[in-house]
């Protein structure tokens, strides 16, 4: 799980171009949207691409992702259960 969480953080930092951030800067339970990292609707779509590209998970839409994308920990939990690659 630790490795998965770290990989997710790296993938998020890379795909979302979070300038100057390292995995240590993102707490596992930090909210990703709103306050927290301040991601927005386009970033949510980008997270859907990450799940598809690296883990073979197809989320139908961003609203389905709302629960999943609360924090890196919730994403990791979802990925661990649903990954196909």
């Amino acid at each position, binding site marked *: 799980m630790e490795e998965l969480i770290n990989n997710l953080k790296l993938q998020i930092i890379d*795909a979302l171009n979070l300038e100057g951030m390292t995995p240590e800067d993102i707490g596992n339970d930090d909210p990703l949207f709103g306050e927290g990292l301040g991601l927005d*609707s386009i970033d949510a*779509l980008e997270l859907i691409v990450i799940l598809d590209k690296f883990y073979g998970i197809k989320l139908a839409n961003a609203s389905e992702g709302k629960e999943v994308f609360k924090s890196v920990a919730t994403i990791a939990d979802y990925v661990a259960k649903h990954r196909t690659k």
Partner: protein
Amino acid sequence: MTGILATNITSPIGLTTAANFEAVRRGEVSQKNLAGFRGLPVNICAGCFTEEQRAALRVPGFSWLESLEIRSVQEALSHCDVDPASPRTLFVLSTTLGNVDELSASPETDGDFRNYGESARKVARHLGIVTEPVIVCNACVSGVTAQLLADRLIASGRYDHAIVCGADSLSPFIVAVFTSFQSLSPTVCRPFDIERLGLNLGEAASTVILGKSSGAGTWRILDGSLDNDSYHVSAPDPTGDGVRRVIEKVVAGRDVSDLATVCVHGTGTMFNDEMESKAIAAAGLSGVPVSSYKAYFGHTMGACGLLETVLALYALDQGVILPAGGYEEIGVSGRIDISPAERPTGKRTLLKIVSGFGGCNGAAVYGKEIPGQARNDGEGQPRYDRDWQVVRRLRIRSGKGEMDGKDLVVELDGQEVAVEGEGQEMLTALYKARLGDNPRYFKMDPFSRLTYLGVGLLLKDIKVEPTKVGILLFNGTGSILADRKHLATFTGDAGFYPSPAVCINTLPNVVVGEIAARYRVKGETTFLILPERNEAMMAEITASTMAVQGPFTMVTGWVDCPEPDVFEADLQVITTK
């Protein structure tokens, strides 16, 4: 007052305006279910021409998009006696993506790709047009922006006629963009319906020939307005405030009971239709019948602002409001008058509204001539005085060859700005030192970074009422770097993982939306492409834009980034005296 002398619609269901009207009346639609569209691992429903139609319409030596433009303009010209070869005939092309279907991920494999300006010029010359083309690249608002731009330049006295053509084609490029945004409906779209699932893409061209000389019975552009909702690059302001403001501006002083119809944007997405319904209701137009056409053509992007206006005006000439395609049961909260049935009308005033990525909105009102109410345009004399002054100026130049012994120049208000590094590194360092206000900066492509930085540096200290500030940018190469980057996410061995963050910057006006949202710009924001930097034309357009705003402050100028470290921004803030 500018009149519409001739029109054309070239779509999968008809090659003339009349043929499209009849086809819609027969219930024909342009959309088809396309399994695995051109090798992409997606099933879409989109408006597109058949292979047979494409072969028949293709003009030798031109791309498919250029062929559509040529066919549409030629057919429109056949209905009027406007001379395309006059030095007083303007050509305005409205397109969101241009020839992007010919583009490849790398310059080495481009083949016959022609970028916006080169393509528009080649089409213009083929049509016999001798003046330099102007390309409006303002996302979905382009078709209305193009008409208003032409209207203003005719009113200024510089041109007698304008050929205004809107066109976009269906390509893997655009399918990948909208797939990544998850906004495509798997079936024919259902604007305003409770069960709508998103939009269909479409391809078409549509043309209007505009001119001063016109008799009674000619449709006139009575008024127009453009603004920005200053909310978000891709999501519309959910209150519909930006659309409400442009509607209120163009219907001010008119009896809204004279409006035959409001021809809506109605894309079929949850957000657009909901927002649009609220704007219509808030502007007091709940009782005006809606004309909604996306279910017949799909979203034809650069064409739709023209196509839908042309079809709605033709329908009014036949005394009808066409059925709202795809609509059965109301699925929006703003009260609107929408019907799945054709309705008769004897009224002769049309309101067209549009909204697009980058936060821009547009409205135009059309009517038949009412004696005694025509605007006095003057004859052949520029109507617009230069009554503004330059208050700030910024110049950023890199990799364009030496000027005054330097290759890199950053100058703000005539003072050289000390910078670190070169090229993109220098831009980012400058951004961090001077702005540092927007994490999205780092998600942008090189062109958008340059534009955000340049316009941001000029706007950040300007304190003016948001509705009195606008942006008018000119550019040469569009968003070519973002376009290539996007292509690399789904061509070759890349699989199919188009990135929304990359896709969003393939519309070059989107960065203007980013700026508008950050710096509270709620006035007109327009993005134009020229074949090359042309100071005379830029000055004409700037003058005609300032002239219709009232007291106004605007950032305007040239901004272009053909390669990551080769770029130029030459911008100024002008304000009414």
